[in-house]
């Protein structure tokens, strides 16, 4: 039985023909190149290099960016791509999110003309991998207090500090690193092989196992002056990247939830207990109906947010709501799907436990669930509750 994407309200009928074609291309690719290989990749803890090449070959990296060899698609198309990738695995979608929204986007929006021409075409084609260094061991939800710093030294900058939880770090050809220069957060492009830069991989994850997660270590790391991103100062830089990545996640989570629903429905239809498929029992139907309800709502949220992104009529709080809600329900759907699968649900024959473990990370990265609640709380009340200091 092939994958049947739940789309109860036929939300995809609102997409353009091209968006549907792109959806089909990515969905077919996930069927052919991700699903048969993902469990083994997770066991071995690797992101397959062929995925990088094929994602680049499909021309979907940096989807909404225009020019410099980038695809120039709508934000809605970008969302659809994220959804289809995450139906395969959150790790694959993470690769694409980091590459496009966190590494390509800041170069595209804040980089110099030379930087755009040097990096973006290779990143769009997948020849160059990017990563994004914001989070530090002691500064996660509070990136503004980061300690990584840059100092001027003649015709160079010298970076010192460490970043942590960096997707793609070890395999990246370049890193967009945020560090304080004279107390102001600035973006810097650090290339693999730069003196004083290393990116050891973090091992032992129970989640996103087919995705590379790394530390970035800067010990008197020396980079030329032309590697600073000239176009932005302060937290606005990294936050505008995160807005785009979080937007993609709000779609991606729908894909993971659809995968769990598809597996749970077909398992419930074929698993016989007490002489009947378990789908014939009210408790199981209740769970499936709840999953359908939440997925349908999440789809509508993601789609409408896409429309707003494309029209430019959005605020970051809109993205917070969708990221928080959709990841939250996807994680809960994965748990309920595991429950419907009974003991079989823990096996890698089914995708549900993998999605569940992945979504624990997705709930936390790119603004934790709680931080997004605080963003909404501030929006509602006008009172920030992130810190005890006003």
């Amino acid at each position, binding site marked *: 039985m092939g994958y049947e994407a739940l789309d109860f309200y036929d939300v995809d009928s609102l997409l353009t023909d091209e968006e549907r074609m792109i959806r089909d*291309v990515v969905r077919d690719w996930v069927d052919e190149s991700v699903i048969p290989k993902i469990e083994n990749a997770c066991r071995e803890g690797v992101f397959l290099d062929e995925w990088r090449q094929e994602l680049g070959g499909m021309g*979907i990296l940096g989807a909404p960016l225009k020019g410099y060899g980038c695809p120039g698609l709508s934000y809605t198309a970008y969302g659809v791509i994220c959804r289809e990738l995450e139906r395969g695995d959150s790790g694959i979608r993470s690769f694409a999110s980091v590459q496009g929204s966190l590494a390509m986007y800041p170069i595209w929006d804040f980089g110099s003309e030379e930087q755009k021409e040097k990096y973006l075409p290779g990143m769009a084609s997948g020849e160059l991998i990017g990563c994004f260094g914001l989070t530090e061991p002691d500064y996660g939800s509070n990136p503004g207090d980061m300690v990584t710093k840059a100092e001027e030294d003649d015709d160079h900058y010298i970076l010192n500090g460490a970043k942590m939880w960096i997707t793609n770090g070890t395999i990246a050809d370049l890193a967009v690193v945020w560090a304080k220069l004279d107390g102001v957060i600035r973006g810097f492009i650090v290339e693999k092989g730069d003196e004083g830069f290393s990116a050891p991989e973090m091992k032992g994850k129970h989640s996103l196992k087919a995705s590379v997660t790394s530390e970035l270590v800067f010990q008197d790391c020396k980079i030329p002056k032309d590697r600073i991103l000239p176009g932005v100062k302060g937290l606005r830089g990294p936050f505008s990247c995160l807005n785009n990545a979080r937007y993609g996640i709000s779609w991606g989570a729908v894909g993971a939830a659809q995968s769990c629903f598809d597996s749970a429905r077909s398992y419930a239809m074929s698993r016989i207990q007490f002489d009947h498929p378990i789908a014939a029992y009210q408790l199981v139907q209740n769970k499936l109906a709840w999953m359908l309800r939440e997925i349908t709502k999440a789809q509508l949220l993601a789609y409408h947010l896409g429309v707003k992104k494309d029209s430019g009529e959005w605020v970051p709080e809109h993205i917070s709501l969708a990221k928080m809600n959709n990841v939250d329900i996807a994680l809960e759907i994965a748990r309920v799907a595991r429950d419907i699968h009974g003991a079989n649900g823990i096996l890698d024959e089914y995708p549900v436990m993998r999605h569940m473990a992945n979504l624990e990370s997705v709930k936390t990265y790119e603004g934790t669930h709680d931080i997004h609640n605080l963003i909404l709380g501030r929006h509602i009340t006008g009172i920030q509750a992130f810190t005890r200091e006003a």
Partner: protein
Amino acid sequence: MKVAVLIKQVPDTTARISIAGGSVDEGSISKWTISPYDEYALEAALKLQSESGAKVVAITLGPQRSSKSLIDAAAVGADELIHVLYEGSSGSLSLQGALAAAVRKSEADIVLAGKQAADTNSGSTAPGVAQMLGLPCVGLVSEVKAVDGNFVATRSTSSGMERVSVNGPCVFAFDKGDEELRRPNVRGIMMAKKKPIESLSPADLGVSMEDGGVNVESVGYPPEKPAGQTFQGAASASEVVTKLREEANVI
């Protein structure tokens, strides 16, 4: 050089098929796709395009929805698109006549098509079109190359591989080959939407769809499989072995 590829839109192999009133209920089919053997023909045409500079013209015949298969062909690189727009159903002779007229209009030098469509499996289109165009037809090919003004096709036979050289216009009917089918990329998809589709009615082509020659009378579900047989206990072993050997012919 111009290569015409005949493309048929068929229900996706994963789509559920239901039958109403002796024919397939098309309204119930959720997903349509290019017939898989036609995809091999298209791939071979695109190879001729990249290796020998051929122009590829994709031709389909069918209702409005089937223009999607032309856009899919454009997304992987087809240069020209011709849609013989026909909402009705007809017999194979008139369908072949309309396709042959479209090929003639395209001024293609050779024609590539799947050996059979995934829905009807009749296998008559390629030889039928060849007959109407007065061209030879080489069937079950997996590859066609342009070599010194000739076309050299590779066919798989029961005893190995056969190479067939044709020194003029020809219709080639494709079997599944070893070629990996190219996947459209986003750039191709965005370009495809700008490519015009030449839409022609059978009348535009001077073809009547009245006398189809061969018509499908009705379709039905395959007969249900008889229930399996159950054997229990060691004593039944010899009976099972006998049945496996004599009835199932598997040992």
